[in-house]
């Protein structure tokens, strides 16, 4: 199936908020992380990130990472006059997803607190703002 980072970012975000409102912190938290990853990858793809020629549903190797690492890579990727605008929305030194791990899906629910989910909700909203700005600018249609 073809990759659609923008729609994936939106649906993960919607479902994460749904779970968050029901107090289901663990899976909400997991989806906030995936949503942020997809939002940034949607912008990066529009700004020139290449997909892996051997695995067309994955980005080139250095960007085939999850949000805990991708957040830090985004500002380095987004240099140049146009992309710098999006990097400016993110604070690389305070990565909200430092405490997020894709493998937490295998962990016990009690490991993921509300505080943690709130922090990652905040991060997902920031990544979403980057995506929305790129849509407004016509970088992503």
């Amino acid at each position, binding site marked *: 199936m073809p990759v659609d980072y923008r729609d994936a970012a939106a649906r993960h975000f919607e479902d994460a908020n749904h779970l968050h409102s029901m107090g289901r912190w663990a899976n909400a938290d997991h989806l906030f992380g995936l949503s942020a990853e997809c939002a940034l990858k949607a912008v990066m793809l529009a700004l020139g990130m290449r997909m892996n020629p051997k695995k067309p549903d994955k980005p080139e190797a250095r960007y085939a990472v999850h949000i805990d690492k991708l957040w830090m890579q985004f500002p380095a990727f987004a240099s140049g006059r146009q992309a*710098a605008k999006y990097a*400016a929305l993110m604070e690389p030194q305070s990565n909200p997803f430092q405490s997020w791990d894709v493998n937490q899906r295998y962990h016990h629910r009690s490991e993921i607190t509300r505080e943690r989910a709130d922090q990652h909700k905040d991060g997902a909203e920031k990544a979403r*703002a980057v995506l929305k700005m790129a849509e*407004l600018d016509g*970088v992503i249609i």
Partner: protein
Amino acid sequence: MSGPPVFFEQALTKALETVKQFHGLAREVTLLRDFRGRIRLLLPGSAVDYRNKERTIKRLADSLSAALGGYGFPPEQMILYHEALAIAANEWSDRFALDQSDGMTIHLLDRQITGQDWLKDPFTPQNSNPRATLFGVKGGVGRSTALIIWAWHLAQRGKRVLVFDLDLESPGVSSTLLPPEAMPDFGIVDWFVEDGVGQGDLITPEMLAVSPLASGSRGDIKIVPAFGSKTGEYLPKLARCYAQSAEAAPWGERLERMVTSFERNEQPDLVLLDSRAGVHDIAAVAITRMNAFSLLFAVDSAQTWRAYSFLFSHWKRHARLSDLRQRMQIVAAMVPETNRGEHLKRFREHAWDLFRECLYDEVPAEAADAFSFDLNDEEAPHYPAPVFWHRALQEFEPCAQAEGIEGKMAAEAMGLFMDRADRLVFAGVDEDNAE
């Protein structure tokens, strides 16, 4: 695609004409023009709000798509909704009304990579001293030289002048006013880089120097240069000057904050901003946002008037045009030694055409409250303050010469300019203590 191609300048008009035919659809709509100039329509609310108007929406999308050619989108991508885009309030504030008719207001939200400052509101003034920005739409017309002589003249009269070298891409007044041994450690490029990591305040005490040029006078000239003796590599710093960050305010706000902090400490009688030439973001901030009087340098050439007309016609849209135009003065630069009268007459006519076309109200000059001036009105913004070409102003290095600036030369070349500029910036300021 059928029909003749649509080019950038036609697209907006076509979009407006098309949307106006659908005036019953909403009270307020927005044309969103993206980085590449492509236009989409933004409707308030979300798609479900228009469920009972599906056919109208479809017709509108089809018409826009057909009208806009390469500056449009396929019909299904032509229309966006506010709620889906979650536009932040600060993004919205760049929007302005293009048209109001038949109960519908059509706004334009212009998304640009640079140049947004030309149309933004001025900052709330924190300073009590006047400011003047010296600008030329083209460089090499003696703008910085005029700034230095004017600053010197004011210092002679007992004024305390504070100069900022904002011509960061081509710094000039910094080294003309300050010999190497008088340079402070740091300059404006350093400040922007350090401020980017929250350390701007740490270097401000090391960014100011007194120019020896005015050492014998009652007043003084202090300067915040573009660079200092410890700046090191200039280009890598300059490249980071305009960087935005999540924590820091936009560039213009930061410049205003830096200038204000020096004003607070130094309490000058006048601040002079040497703006970068050309239509650049530095000039946009220095002319339109910093509550400064603008001295607009020009030579009488078709290319200069054309370049100014690009800028002035952009200002027609400025929400605060009525304030902005009150603080402008055109300067006739490098007026030749021969046939001065004839030259200035031609200059004045060209300047008048430019101002009438873009900035003056279209009414007779005698109409009350109208901002409109006769060709020969000496107080009009288009009536040139002249700077005469003078041999001594070529290769102007006053700090390197023992005699500094010679009063006779200054008066000959710039007497009329300085009278005019003094009146402009000090109008209403109590001069009892200075004279």
